[in-house]
């Protein structure tokens, strides 16, 4: 019943997507507006169908319908409700079901957002592309990755989800957010392809999709950070990023999408970089498919690869189709893509964006190569090789530091060109602030060169951000806004600028945390009898006893560890090991005392024996909490950047007499920039 309903819904979704494609293509051919309007509406059928399919699956999970293979493999009678629900994305087939639902949501958003412009061929083509992507995933679910496949014999109980996936509530948030980011990249991709097909390569498609891209980017960022958090709270090795192929797969589209949301500003302002921006959008989409292929086909084995299935070939085929098709389209339109613009000076905002893109592209190449290199070596030379943390650290650290430098300098650069004098004046205080922090860190004994440089550049960047925000506030205040209203009015005046600066602050927080980790992490392993104490890095750890609890889901042994510093009791923490029925080895659950400067991370390496001796892993991890805070700042910044720009334009008089015309408050991203010099920046003769 549930299985039949699910399959029926999937079939309905596939047919809707197909009908959408046919009707839209007919409408485009006959130039029939009515058909185009109808075609758009199939998006709602896709959404409805995918929603019904998801409900059918959740219903089957909650009622433990083990006649469905997916339920039998990813659910058990003892699975708690939360992890029964999250069972939807515990394995491949269910994940694609979720993928389909999110795709349906984005499709419906497109259909609603563009309902008044259904007759525009650009919109119609974008919908066709989105429907084609949808059709692929629905056919995938009807064929090789059918989530509703029946078992010949219904087992009395299921296997339950992988123990690692039923151990932490973050499991409820990380995968859906990541998918919201991944799948969202379909929207800019659809419009990019539509622009190529219609030949309308001006800035129209960019503005149409800017918001959708930003939303997807924000979700992807938060999804990645939550994944790191999950890894930190569940896997128990003390870290949050292992350069695992699955992590890399989520990072790759993020890198190209980040490059895009920077370089798109150059195209908006100067009408340049069209081919490059289209390529970035296409690359981002391809990398989401590649990531799905790498992680879900079983070609790589990693902590995340819980499933293997024959869909590898399908995904690879689709990836090849998308990549080759896009390359042909870009080559075909290559001539018309050439923009007449030019960049006047290597010391300007747009030049900084170019360098930013070069660095992000290099990062993406590093991560991509490192991820697929073992596969290539095996396929081409039959050699078993690994690429791991040492390679990625060595390659990404210098590029990351260069990006941090750029992030400190670039927001202070004016568009078009700058005189050295202006730049020196804008940067001198933030730069000295950075150097000051570097010196202080050195005095406190930091000797790792990359850590010192990162601290200095982070402070430099923060100094620049504070300066820019302060100038923006002052300009508003001078224009007569009361101090109470200044922050809100300033942000509303240029949401993209200030949203971007908040995201940058988040990046600074993360960079500082990563740099601290390489310098100050302490790791130890101690064996304690009950009542015995040990001291690590100034903290005293006492094993005070064990606690055993049992549920249907699992049997958990906890070791109570009291942490003290000097005479101060910092509380008792209890790292645990859980045994799940059917699992051969125990699953550890770390216990983390989180603090603003350092986390104390306890793991139970060997469970208490009968003589009550335990082995406990102790790690002192500096600044980890700032990674999660940085992720939060990135989310807030993205939300700010999405705010509609206030139409009320405040034009303040010139601030201070010593300010020459070239050094206005940070130019915003639109015609409201207070000094009016933006007039020169309107792209000339490049509107399509």
């Amino acid at each position, binding site marked *: 019943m549930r299985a039949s309903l699910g399959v029926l819904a999937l079939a309905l979704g596939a047919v809707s997507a197909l009908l959408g494609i046919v009707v839209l293509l007919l409408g485009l051919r006959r130039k029939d507006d009515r058909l185009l309007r109808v075609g758009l509406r199939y998006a709602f059928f896709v959404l409805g169908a995918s929603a019904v399919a998801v409900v059918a699956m959740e219903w089957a999970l909650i009622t433990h319908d083990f006649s469905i293979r997916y339920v039998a493999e990813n659910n058990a009678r003892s699975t708690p409700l939360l992890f029964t629900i999250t069972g939807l994305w515990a394995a491949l087939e269910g994940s694609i079901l979720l993928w389909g639902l999110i795709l349906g949501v984005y499709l419906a958003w497109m259909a609603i957002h563009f309902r008044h412009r259904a007759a525009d061929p650009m919109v119609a083509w974008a919908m066709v592309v989105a429907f084609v992507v949808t059709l692929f995933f629905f056919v995938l679910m009807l064929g090789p990755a059918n989530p509703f496949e029946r078992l010949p014999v219904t087992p009395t109980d299921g296997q339950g989800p992988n123990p690692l996936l039923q151990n932490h509530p973050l499991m409820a948030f990380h995968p859906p957010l990541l998918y919201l980011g991944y799948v969202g990249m379909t929207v800019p991709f659809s419009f990019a392809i539509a622009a190529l097909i219609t030949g309308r390569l001006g800035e129209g498609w960019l503005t149409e999709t800017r918001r959708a891209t930003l939303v997807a980017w924000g979700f992807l960022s938060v999804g990645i950070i939550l994944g790191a958090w999950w890894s930190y709270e569940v896997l*128990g*090795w*003390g*870290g949050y990023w*292992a350069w*695992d*192929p699955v992590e890399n797969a989520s990072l790759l589209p993020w890198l190209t999408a980040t490059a895009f949301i920077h370089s798109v500003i150059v195209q908006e302002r100067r009408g340049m970089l069209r081919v490059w921006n289209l390529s970035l959008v296409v690359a981002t989409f391809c990398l989401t498919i590649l990531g799905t292929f790498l992680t879900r086909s079983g070609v*790589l*084995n*990693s*902590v995340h690869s819980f499933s293997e299935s024959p869909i590898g070939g399908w995904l690879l085929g689709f990836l090849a189709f998308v990549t080759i098709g896009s390359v042909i389209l870009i080559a075909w339109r290559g001539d018309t893509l050439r923009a007449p613009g*030019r*960049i*006047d*000076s*290597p010391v300007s905002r747009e030049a900084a964006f*170019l360098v930013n893109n*070069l660095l992000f*592209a*290099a990062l993406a*190449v*590093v991560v991509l*190569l490192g991820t697929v*290199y*073992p596969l*290539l*070596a095996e396929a*081409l030379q039959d*050699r078993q*090789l*690994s*690429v*791991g*943390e*040492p*390679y990625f650290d*060595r390659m990404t650290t210098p*590029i990351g530091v260069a990006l941090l430098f750029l992030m400190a300098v670039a927001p202070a650069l004016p568009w078009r060109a700058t005189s050295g*004098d202006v730049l*020196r*004046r804008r940067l*001198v205080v933030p*730069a*000295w602030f950075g*150097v000051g922090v*570097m*010196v202080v860190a*050195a005095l406190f004994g930091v*000797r*790792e*060169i990359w850590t*010192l*440089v990162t601290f200095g550049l982070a402070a430099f960047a923060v100094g620049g951000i504070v300066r820019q925000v302060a100038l923006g506030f002052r300009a508003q205040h001078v224009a007569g806004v009361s101090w109470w209203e200044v922050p809100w009015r300033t942000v509303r005046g240029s949401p993209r600028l200030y949203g971007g600066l908040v995201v940058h602050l988040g990046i600074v927080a993360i960079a500082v945390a990563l740099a601290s980790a390489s310098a100050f992490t302490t790791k130890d*392993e101690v064996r304690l009898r009950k009542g015995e104490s040990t001291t690590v890095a100034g903290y005293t750890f006492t094993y005070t006893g064990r606690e055993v609890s049992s549920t249907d889901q699992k049997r958990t042994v906890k070791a109570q560890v009291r942490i003290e510093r000097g005479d101060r009791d910092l509380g008792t923490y209890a790292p645990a090991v859980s045994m799940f029925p059917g699992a051969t080895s125990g699953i550890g659950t770390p216990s983390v005392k989180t603090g603003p400067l350092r986390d104390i991370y306890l*793991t139970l*390496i060997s469970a208490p024996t009968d003589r009550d001796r335990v082995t406990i*892993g102790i790690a002192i991890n500096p600044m980890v909490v700032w990674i999660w805070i940085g992720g939060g700042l990135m989310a807030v910044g993205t939300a700010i950047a999405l705010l509609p720009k206030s139409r009320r334009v405040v034009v303040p008089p010139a601030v201070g007499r010593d300010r020459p015309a070239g050094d206005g408050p940070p130019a915003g991203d639109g*015609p409201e920039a207070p000094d009016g010099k933006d007039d020169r920046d309107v792209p*000339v*003769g490049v509107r399509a």
Partner: protein
Amino acid sequence: MSRGRGWIPWVGLVAVVVAVVVWAVWPSGDQTDAERVRNITHQLRCPDCESLSAGDSQTASARAIRRDVTQRVAEGQSAATIKRAYVDRYGESILLEPERDGIGLVVWGLPLLVLVGGGVGLFFAFRRWRNAAPVHATEADEELVREMRRGDGAS
């Protein structure tokens, strides 16, 4: 701030940065044994994990490797000897860093090539742009822009 002396704080700044960097990279005695162990175990893959190093993982085999490397370092074996011993036992895939020869050159060289190639490309692009005649807005363009702005404000 007068135009002529704007560079003074920058010279000071560069001097301080150079001093700190030199201080930081100045060799300060030999590594301790614990640091050596840490470095070596982080370059070895934990045999029963896929991506974690033996230095990070908590599995039994990773802990065995940590103990073994600690002992070898205490015996005075060099990092190269220890890594060689592990390659002999487990095969090349125990090393988390690909070697810099043969196909390994690709994984080390290609990103560098992209950076250098991109940098050179940008350099020539800037030179071309500098030499190209600037595009000026015609009066018709300006009028178009003014018209659009007016339309924009009304909406």
